[in-house]
């Protein structure tokens, strides 16, 4: 088997930063750039090997850390603004993914970049949330009637809403998977278990197990995996952070069953341990084996994710990576919609492409 890419080796064992050659540093920077992990690697290097950082690479680390710092400030500002908007209609702010990691001051927030802010709202109150955000300056950025219906009838979120002045985007979710997906995790359960954060009145994040499960669910239903390793690293950091909580591992597996998300949790544990060396207790891995797909599927998924989760960079491509990503793209669509609806959706997109509209 080929040696793991240098970026994967560094995420697994940051101490190895002390032993990199200049050629390794060159590749590390390139792989980290391709996966939006420069700032996270920079923080690891500052912490584990501050004296070993190649002088050529140091300025790139410095720049990435500045940008990450600015991202973090912008996320804090958006959290405050969205919180105010929702508060005006008496809704609490439940943050998901990156913004939640920032609010919870989780290690998974370190050196992370953010494209948008994801929030969770009870389905019954989603119109209220939309109206409140519109009054505070956000507006739906999708305009075709088809797109609008795609989101509102089939997806688990409103069309993305963009702020008119700051151009920041908020994704308002009422569930963590599309309405049309075959797994139907109950959002009410997630909302009921959401936890308040000390020093942040009105801001909630998902319970620790739910945070992991949502992260897993997102990654293993994702269509585009160019940030796959970043997301896997988030999962790794969440698992390491929560590992010491009493009962965490057994709660995680029980909750995965309760939310109908056993399979993504199986993949999360499998690939984060395989690729990033996440310290999952052997008993948990053994117990999670009951969530595994049948052996032929498992072998196929190993082959696909084993490639697609590596950095999307020529140095990590064994010639099959593009095919693996394409198959996982199809799989993600398959999981999102039943076949009839999927056919209809693809036919519509194909017609648009023929007419040159997209």
């Amino acid at each position, binding site marked *: 088997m080929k040696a793991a890419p240098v970026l994967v080796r560094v995420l697994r064992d940051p101490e190895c930063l002390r032993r990199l050659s200049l050629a390794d540093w*060159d590749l590390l920077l390139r792989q980290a750039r391709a996966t939006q992990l420069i700032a996270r690697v920079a923080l690891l290097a500052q912490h584990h090997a501050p004296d070993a950082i190649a002088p050529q690479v140091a300025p790139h680390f410095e*720049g990435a850390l500045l940008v990450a710092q*600015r991202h973090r400030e912008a996320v804090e500002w958006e959290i405050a603004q969205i919180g105010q908007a929702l508060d005006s209609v008496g809704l609490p702010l439940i943050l998901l993914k990156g913004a939640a990691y920032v609010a919870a001051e989780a290690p998974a927030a370190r050196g992370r970049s953010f494209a948008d802010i994801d929030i969770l709202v009870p389905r019954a109150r989603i119109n209220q949330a939309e109206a409140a955000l519109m009054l505070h300056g956000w507006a739906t950025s999708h305009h075709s009637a088809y797109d609008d219906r795609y989101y509102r009838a089939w997806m688990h979120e409103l069309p993305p809403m963009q702020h008119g002045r700051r151009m920041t985007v908020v994704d308002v979710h009422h569930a963590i998977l599309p309405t049309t997906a075959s797994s139907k995790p109950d959002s009410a359960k997630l909302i009921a278990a959401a936890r308040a954060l000390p020093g942040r009145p009105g801001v909630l994040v998902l319970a620790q197990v739910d945070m992991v499960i949502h992260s897993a669910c997102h990654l293993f239903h994702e269509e585009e995996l160019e940030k796959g390793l970043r997301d896997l690293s988030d999962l790794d950091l969440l698992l390491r952070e929560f590992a010491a909580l009493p009962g965490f591992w057994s709660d995680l597996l029980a909750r995965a069953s309760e939310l109908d998300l056993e399979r993504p949790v199986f993949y999360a544990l499998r690939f984060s341990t395989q690729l990033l060396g996440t310290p999952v207790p052997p008993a948990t891995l053994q117990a999670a084996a009951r969530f595994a797909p049948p052996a032929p599927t498992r072998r196929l998924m190993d082959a696909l994710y084993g490639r697609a989760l590596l950095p999307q960079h020529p140095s990590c491509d064994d010639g099959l990576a593009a095919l693996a990503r394409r198959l996982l793209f199809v799989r993600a669509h398959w999981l999102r919609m039943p076949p009839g609806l999927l056919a209809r959706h693809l036919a519509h997109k194909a017609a648009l492409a023929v007419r040159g509209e997209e």
Partner: protein
Amino acid sequence: MADGVYFRTGTFIACLRTRIERVAASFSLLYSDYPLQDGPYADFHVELAPPRGLRRWLRPQVDFIADGHAPFAALPADQAFPMFEWGLNWCVSSQAQHYLIIHAAVVEKNGRAAILPAPPGSGKSTLCAALIHHGWRLLSDELTLIRRDDAALIPLPRPVSLKNASIDVIKRYVPHATFSPSVTDTVKGTVAQMKAPANSIERADQAAAPGWIVFPRYEANATLALTPVPRSRAFMRVADNAFNYTRLGAAGFEALKGVVAHSDCYDFRYSVLDEAVAAFDRLASQAGNR
């Protein structure tokens, strides 16, 4: 150049790989004075290659590939060399976040730099091309790099990109300079690159202190006018021309503040290059007397 040539441009090392003859030819013409480097490290790994597929036999095209990824749509094959120049600029402006980067030409005399921010069509590159062959040193004709800790301007001397009428204007004005072949019908019209002066390339490791911010505007038959601009206004106008001012947050603000605080700021209207160069020389000598 199929195995890649590593060369230094300012503080960066770039690695260019290509099998395209016209890129290799223009590269050897314009980059002969740049120090070559040994691998394996490069800040930017770029490649120019024909896209795959049948189309290459019908209408030859070229892709700019930044480390395995093509950020732009393919262009007609005869635009390969300009595409290399644009692509390398894109690499710097999108990936070198340790500098505050302004879309502006920057030239230096007696240790002080004049920054020329301007929208396309304002005659910025024309003026820059004239100045660097009349006593001013080229730092960059396109990307002003500002070091954050001391607001120094960091050289990135690369070929000066000229377009349309200014190509012939500069060929007449600086007849001894070296030019790449002109390429017609690009998105910017006809373009040609002028080789950077050897002396500017040699001194690429010498930063310059900020001296002036001059917003140039070419206007046919206009009389020369140099009008002071308040620093506050100049600050906002430069920020509008920055690539990463908002991405850097407070750090970007501090860096720009450092530059503007040490610069005299002017609007500059010109029609005759000789007069324009003389006006810049007066600025430099006034500064020397201060």
